[in-house]
């Protein structure tokens, strides 16, 4: 009954989204506030309906109602509760429902937002409704998550064991909240194009939505990467897989948008480019969803191998983005920039940032679509990590060199010499760090040493910028403390994000250049050496989990002084349903490093007895790879909490300056 109610709610949500779009556009055309107000109500109701449908699906999963096709295919009575709930978004149908949930939630938030002029808001809510119509329509007509089965099975087929993991249960909600958050920015761009008005007030409304989506996307990608790191057992964290690329492309665009929206807000420049990025960012979100969901890149392995559905998703993408870009081509010439800037200015630095991010996004897009392009010419092929690492590495190197200078440059025209002087200490530290690493780290790697120097340069640059803002060491400590509290949080958010990027770069350099790998077939009592560590297999026992059986090894890790680092317990699990075998990696954190241990297959030893293949990595500084992006996301959240983001009413905020006046 609840399932039928949910199905009904989803159909109702489709009708409400159509009403939301229709009422908004007609209301805007007739300048009728009652109609646009009704559209806002429809946006709210559509969200409530999709939420009800989602609750119905989660209910079916929790109660293991196998008469629902989606539950029968993705759940199992013995599965732990958290994975029953997470199973609701573990399938194609479920993830589309999650997408629609996020889309209507953002539509509802846009309808409730204050401070937007009514005409712009009406068109934003209307565009959001049009997007809702497309996606909810697709869900109801082609991908209904609540379909019943005529003859329900007694037991479900269970969720893929690899998905039964806490990080991965949380990964899709964050990722989709990020992807779909960009839909509001897209709608704002479309609304601004229709109104023919892109000014600093518009950019001020765009920024908080972009920040929120960007932060959530950052968390989502990091969770996915962390999951890949410890669940897949390869010790790697980024594979340049089409699915990862699909999430990276909108992130790159959102990052560019964050920076260009600042220029549009503060200087009234780059208006057309900011609008273009806003449309492109959500387009790449949709392209990512299409690539992942349609199976077009992975004919053998995807969930939705139904080509009919792939074509439908492509049609939605073409309809939404095609019309937005057509609108852009028509209206963009109307958007005039209000100010010019000199070659050396903060504007120029931000434009360079945008050029490089756009080039990186092009790299990822070209590499991801390359197999399809070749296929069109009847050839087979594709690119992998070496291509991406080289091209993205070269491009990002340029970005990293200029990044610390950006926040120090003045708007409009800057004094390059003064900025260089301020950064000389940071540059010296970075150079020294690079040289030290180059001469001391073994094996000697020049490129990795340069990467470390780049990371240190970013961190030192961020610190220098923050110190300058606090006037640390130049004014009394109490005065610096007062500035720390008094200065806008947006600026601190930026510092934190740049700092996080620097830490990430350092982590990536260390992890990929100086990772130590070891593998040996060992029986209990013997061990293997892994760089500075010695691993000893103590025992291997059988253990029964809730829905799997496991062989659990106990491996003692000691460092070169002989003191204990940890007793690691990697497992090799065989799931009851499907008989799939997975590995549960054991992570032994030591400072910023991980000792990463995988228990492999059992092998017979000559002369009787058993031995196990144990594979281990010493991943130096790998924690920075996850700490860095989390700091970036926190920086985004901190900026978002800046009151100037909430009072998006187009007034210049005077309060922070006034509050600081006595300190000047």
């Amino acid at each position: 009954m609840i399932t039928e109610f949910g199905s009904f709610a989803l159909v109702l949500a489709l009708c409400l989204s159509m009403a939301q779009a229709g009422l908004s556009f007609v209301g805007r055309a007739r300048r009728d506030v009652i109609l646009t107000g009704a559209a806002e109500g429809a946006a709210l109701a559509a969200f409530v309906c999709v939420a009800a449908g989602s609750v119905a699906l989660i209910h079916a999963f929790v109660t293991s109602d196998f008469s629902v096709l989606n539950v029968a295919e993705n759940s199992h009575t013995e599965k732990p509760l958290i994975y029953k709930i997470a199973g609701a978004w573990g399938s194609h149908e479920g993830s589309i429902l999650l997408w629609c949930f996020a889309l209507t939630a953002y539509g509802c938030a846009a309808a409730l937002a204050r401070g937007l002029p009514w005409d712009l808001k009406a068109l934003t809510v209307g565009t959001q409704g049009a997007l809702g119509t497309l996606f909810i329509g697709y869900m109801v007509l082609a991908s209904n998550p609540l379909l019943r089965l005529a003859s329900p099975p007694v037991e479900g087929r269970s969720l893929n064991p690899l998905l039964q993991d806490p990080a991965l249960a949380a990964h899709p909600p964050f990722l989709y909240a990020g992807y779909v958050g960009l839909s509001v920015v897209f709608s704002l761009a479309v609304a601004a194009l229709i109104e023919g008005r892109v000014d600093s007030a518009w950019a001020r409304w765009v920024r908080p939505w972009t920040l929120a989506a960007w932060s959530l996307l950052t968390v989502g990608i990091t969770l996915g990467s962390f999951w890949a790191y410890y669940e897949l057992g390869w010790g790697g964290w980024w594979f340049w897989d089409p699915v990862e690329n699909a999430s990276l492309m909108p992130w790159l665009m959102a990052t560019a948008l964050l920076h260009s929206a600042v220029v549009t807000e503060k200087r009234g420049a780059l208006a057309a480019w900011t609008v273009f990025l806003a449309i492109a960012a959500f387009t790449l979100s949709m392209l990512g969803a299409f690539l992942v969901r349609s199976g077009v890149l992975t004919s053998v392995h995807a969930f939705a191998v139904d080509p009919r559905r792939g074509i439908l998703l492509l049609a939605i993408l073409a309809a939404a983005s095609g019309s937005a870009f057509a609108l852009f081509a028509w209206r963009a010439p109307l958007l005039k920039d209000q100010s010019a800037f000199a070659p050396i200015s903060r504007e120029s630095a931000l434009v360079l940032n945008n050029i490089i991010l756009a080039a990186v996004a092009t790299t990822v897009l070209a590499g991801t679509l390359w197999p399809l392009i070749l296929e069109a010419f009847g050839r087979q092929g594709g690119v992998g990590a070496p291509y991406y690492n080289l091209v993205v590495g070269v491009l990002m190197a340029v970005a990293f060199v200029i990044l610390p200078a950006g926040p120090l440059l003045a708007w409009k025209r800057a004094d390059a010499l003064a900025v260089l002087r301020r950064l000389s200490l940071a540059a010296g530290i970075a150079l020294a760090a690079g040289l030290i690493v180059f001469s001391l780290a073994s094996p000697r790697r020049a490129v990795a040493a340069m990467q470390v120097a780049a990371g240190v340069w970013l961190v030192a640059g961020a610190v220098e910028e923050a110190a300058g803002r606090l006037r640390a060491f130049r004014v009394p400590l109490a005065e610096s403390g007062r500035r720390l509290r008094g200065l806008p949080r947006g600026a601190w958010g930026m510092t934190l994000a740049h700092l996080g990027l620097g830490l990430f770069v350092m982590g990536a350099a260390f992890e990929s250049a100086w990772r130590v790998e070891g593998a040996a077939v060992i029986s209990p009592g013997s061990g293997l050496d892994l760089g500075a560590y010695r691993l000893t297999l103590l025992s291997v026992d059988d253990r029964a989990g809730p829905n799997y059986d496991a062989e659990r090894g106990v491996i003692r890790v000691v460092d070169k002084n002989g003191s204990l680092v940890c007793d690691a317990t990697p497992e090799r699990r065989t799931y009851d349903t499907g008989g799939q075998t997975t590995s549960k990696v054991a992570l032994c954190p030591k400072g910023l490093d991980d000792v990463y241990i995988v228990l492999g297959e059992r092998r017979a030893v000559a002369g009787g007895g058993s031995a196990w293949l144990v594979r281990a990595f010493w991943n130096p500084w790998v924690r920075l790879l996850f700490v860095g992006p989390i700091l970036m996301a926190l920086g985004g959240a901190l900026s978002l909490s800046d009151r100037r983001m909430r009072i998006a009413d187009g007034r210049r905020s005077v309060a922070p300056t006034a509050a600081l006046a006595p300190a000047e």
Partner: protein
Amino acid sequence: MNARRIAALLGAVACLAAAADPAERLNNPTQEARARALFRETRCVVCQGESIDDSDADLAGDLRQAIRARITAGATDDQVRAFLRARYGDFVLFRPSLSLANALLWGGPFVVAIIGAGLLIARQRSAPPAPPLSPEEEAKVAVLTADEPV
């Protein structure tokens, strides 16, 4: 959801050791390191997007053995790559060759960057900056923009 990768890795996860398996390793560490570097840039053509370094598919094992044998016999890295390309085509190498057909792939991102930089320069040429401020104006601006939020 990383649907594709999960699916692609289903087979792979059961096969943690692949190239690091002690049973396969060469005795000469320099040669083994070269072999591993080559494995990482060689696609397991029957798997989805995995290198033969990671994959435990039979074909990947055969290729690893063939590469190790060639290295032991004294072949250079380029000779090994040529052998792989002759046998499986360009597809087998993750690093696309610098050929005319791949020009778009290698050049595209840099063309985007150069066009962007060109537009930036053109823009600044067409809009000459305003005359410099007088020292009094500079001082006023400095006061007004101190702590200018970012």
